[in-house]
């Protein structure tokens, strides 16, 4: 058990290395970079002091060196002007646009992103699983039709539109401030109880909006999977044993139908991050989605690179987790049988 996991971790590290190279070179593909553009701008307006600072940054981050050297310095495999200082050493670089270290810019956004998206994932499962079980066991009834219809509506409604409507009514009925993840008055406050309460209240709308499409899709797939499993002979065996119907359902067909969803966990996280950019913009959520978009647009290379690496890391960790759960759930995989 330990050896395969170690092997996986080594593969993951190599994968991350390859991804980092791809990410870096793709970001560097357009001609020029943030600083050279900025210097040209500054020269035109004649601000000598700022130009000097920009040139200092260029030297400090080695932007005057060849691209491959910049890459190696960025990931921390080659000493830069200030020694080894890259991703491997925990230095995530400098955001030129915000004129702050990337860590400071991204800081809160990172864990808020994780929080929102994990809440959405939990929401998806908590709603979709019971709905799918109901729908599958009451096939072709009015209840099934209602669940199906709601599912399709959820799939079809554009998230940002729903977000606007929900924001409006949340503000009108519950007096919730519009946008953001907490009341704007609390922005620079420490994380105390009123701020956390404000955060929880503001989480409801994004969770609903981000999770809705996923919920609808999951109900459809889970229902189809369950229907397949319900027709299998071992389900009949369970009934013939005298098991109460719900207990039989949860122990046998439901567990069998879980595999594809567990296998999906790895894909779910990055999908939620990139899929929620639009919603984040509309709701002005302080998540990494909009930051990434800005960084890519302005060629803020360290910032964009770091966020992309973060998403890639999340994906790999998610896949490792889903594989480990699969091994734990399914003895056929555990024992390497067919």
């Amino acid at each position, binding site marked *: 058990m330990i*050896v395969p996991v170690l092997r996986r971790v080594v593969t993951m590290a190599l994968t991350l290395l390859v991804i980092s190279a791809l990410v870096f070179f793709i970001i560097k593909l357009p001609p020029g970079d943030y600083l050279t553009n900025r210097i040209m701008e500054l020269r035109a307006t004649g601000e000598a002091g700022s130009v000097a600072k920009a040139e200092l940054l260029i030297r400090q981050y080695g932007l005057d060196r060849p691209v491959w050297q910049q890459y190696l310095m960025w990931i921390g495999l080659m000493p830069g002007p200030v020694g080894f200082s890259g991703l491997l050493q925990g230095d995530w670089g400098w955001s030129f646009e915000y004129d702050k270290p990337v860590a400071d810019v991204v800081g809160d956004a990172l864990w808020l992103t994780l929080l929102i998206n994990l809440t959405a994932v939990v929401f998806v499962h908590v709603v979709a699983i019971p709905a799918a079980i109901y729908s599958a066991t009451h096939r072709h009834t009015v209840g099934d039709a209602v669940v199906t219809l709601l599912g399709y509506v959820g799939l079809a409604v554009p998230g940002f539109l729903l977000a606007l409507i929900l924001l409006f009514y949340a503000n009108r009925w519950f007096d919730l401030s519009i946008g953001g993840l907490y009341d704007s008055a609390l922005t620079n406050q420490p994380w105390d109880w009123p701020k956390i309460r404000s955060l929880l209240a503001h989480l409801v709308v994004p969770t609903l909006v981000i999770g809705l499409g996923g919920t609808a899709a999951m109900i459809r797939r889970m229902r189809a999977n369950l229907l397949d499993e319900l027709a299998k002979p071992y389900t009949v065996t369970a009934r013939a*044993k005298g098991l109460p119907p719900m207990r039989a359902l949860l122990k046998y067909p439901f567990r069998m139908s879980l595999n594809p969803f567990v296998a999906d966990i790895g894909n779910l996280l990055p999908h939620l991050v990139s899929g929620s950019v639009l919603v984040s913009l509309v709701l002005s959520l302080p998540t990494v989605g909009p930051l990434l978009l800005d960084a890519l647009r302005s060629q803020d290379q360290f910032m964009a690179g770091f966020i992309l690496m973060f998403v890639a890391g999340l994906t790999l960790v998610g896949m490792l987790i889903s594989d480990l759960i699969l091994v734990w759930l399914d003895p056929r995989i555990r024992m390497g049988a067919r």
Partner: protein
Amino acid sequence: MSPLLSIRDLAVAFRTETGPFEALHGLSLDVMRGQTLALVGESGSGKSVTAQAIMGILPASASITRGKILFRDTSDETDIARLDTEGAAMRAIRGQRIAMIFQEPMTCLSPLHTVGDQIGEALRIHTGADRKEADARTQEALARVGFPDPKRALKTYPFELSGGLRQRAMIAMALILKPALLVADEPTTALDVTTQAQILALLARLQDETGMAILLITHDLGVVANIAHDVAVLYRGRLVEAGPRDTVMRAPGHAYLKALLHAVPRFDMAPGERLTPIRPARAEIPPVQPLAKLAGPLLQVENVSKSYTLRSGRFWQKPRMVHAVSDLSLSLAAGETLGLVGESGSGKTTVSKMIMRALAPDSGTILFDDGSGPRDVHGLSGDALFAYRRTVQFVFQDPYASLDPRMTVRQILSEPMEIHGVPVAERRARCRELMAMVGLEASGLGRYPHAFSGGQRQRIGIARALAPRPRLLVLDEPVSALDVSVQAQILNLLKDLQAALGLSYLIVSHNLAVIDYMADTISVMCRGRIVEEAPRAALFRHPVHPYTRALLAAVPDPSLDHPLDFAAITGDQNDPTRWEAPYLLGPDEAGAMRAIEPGHRVRFSTAQDAEAA
């Protein structure tokens, strides 16, 4: 004494899109305490519906429309037909007083839960036993059904077990609460003949020990003759014949039962006797040019070996090698049929895959003669390989899984011709011709496979194999997934096609009676080796090798005069170290084939020769 279970005037109807369909029309029968009632009939006769009604597990679209199912377990009498199927009263009976075992021991057990968990579950829900007590009782039950290591079996998963052990686990699960009635729905149909004999012996022994009654649902009259006390014959939802086994089997009154007795291959058939299908089908085979005569055999397999590497669970262990086929030789003459017999795991399928060139042998050659002289199949490439692919076709065991449900019959039949470049106009004509050849209407070409019955689907599978005009058909258990009423049709069709088209068949089966009916020469395989090969008549008249004899002895015969000798069935017939001398082989000994009469060769041990030399 009153019967344990009395069914009176039971009718079951299904809701269908075309209105209600009655599957049982007023069935009445009695199951006596401690006795076995065999319920016989073809698929669609209503026998499984009867079992489901007794268990209260009818599909959602079916319901009991009238009649009673009276269950007299204790002094009082319960009418199961009136109970709420999901209510507490029915659940207390189901699994506790009436238990059931099914046909497919693989799919009836959940692959995600251990055997111990699934067996002990019935005990936990009905008696409230805790896990420890349930484990102890489960271990006892596993020992009673003959598990070699019951303690270990608790922790094993169904996919780690052989088919026979899985069915034993199912039986242990059904019997752990000592039910008064066991409903067994085709319990041995999916098993090898030797395993079937063991399971039948086990059921008979457990009945003696516990005094339970068995309602045995089967289409196999050989099984009926061996373990039933009473017989009831169902036909299209009606009881057509019932009574004590001896009366019914010796003097069948109803035409259907008589027909059934003549529709299955038997060992005592006269040479050249044809099976009489219950519903004859007419096939029209157009005259064809006879194939060119060959100087030698059509197919010659020479000293072929194939082993697989099993991935072991722990990385520091050496991977295990499994010798699926060892030093195997076969020869098939043009226009003849070679039967390959053996239990599951004997390597039959590996051999057929190597002939199809779906697997490469580790050593040895497979020679095929398409009229231009023998050539090594595994040395072919390019056009020669493409031509070979056309010449050898495969007929699958499962007609449900082997036809694409999204293709019409015309598309299914046209595809092989399309691949081999037959022009469109010719393809259309050939499709109609193929349908006539297998006895189907040309109007069926536009339909999808689900519109056809199992037997008709198997005809489509045969037509597909014939489409590119092959010389050799590899038939992998061609009738074992089919209902007894259509097996005769398919076997006769295959014989007629062979006679008219000059085809050669390699037929792979564990059913000795089918092989006996079809084959000219027979090779018996055990653990990857041929142990005996002979012309059909010689093998069945004078079987020599202990393995062949064990296989033959395990076939249940419908005639009451040849009962199975349950005591002689040990289950170690495929262990070469347990064979009697001079056939006994040491752990790594290969032995050698020797002729005992012309064409009849048997594998003997060579250990004595070595000592003598």
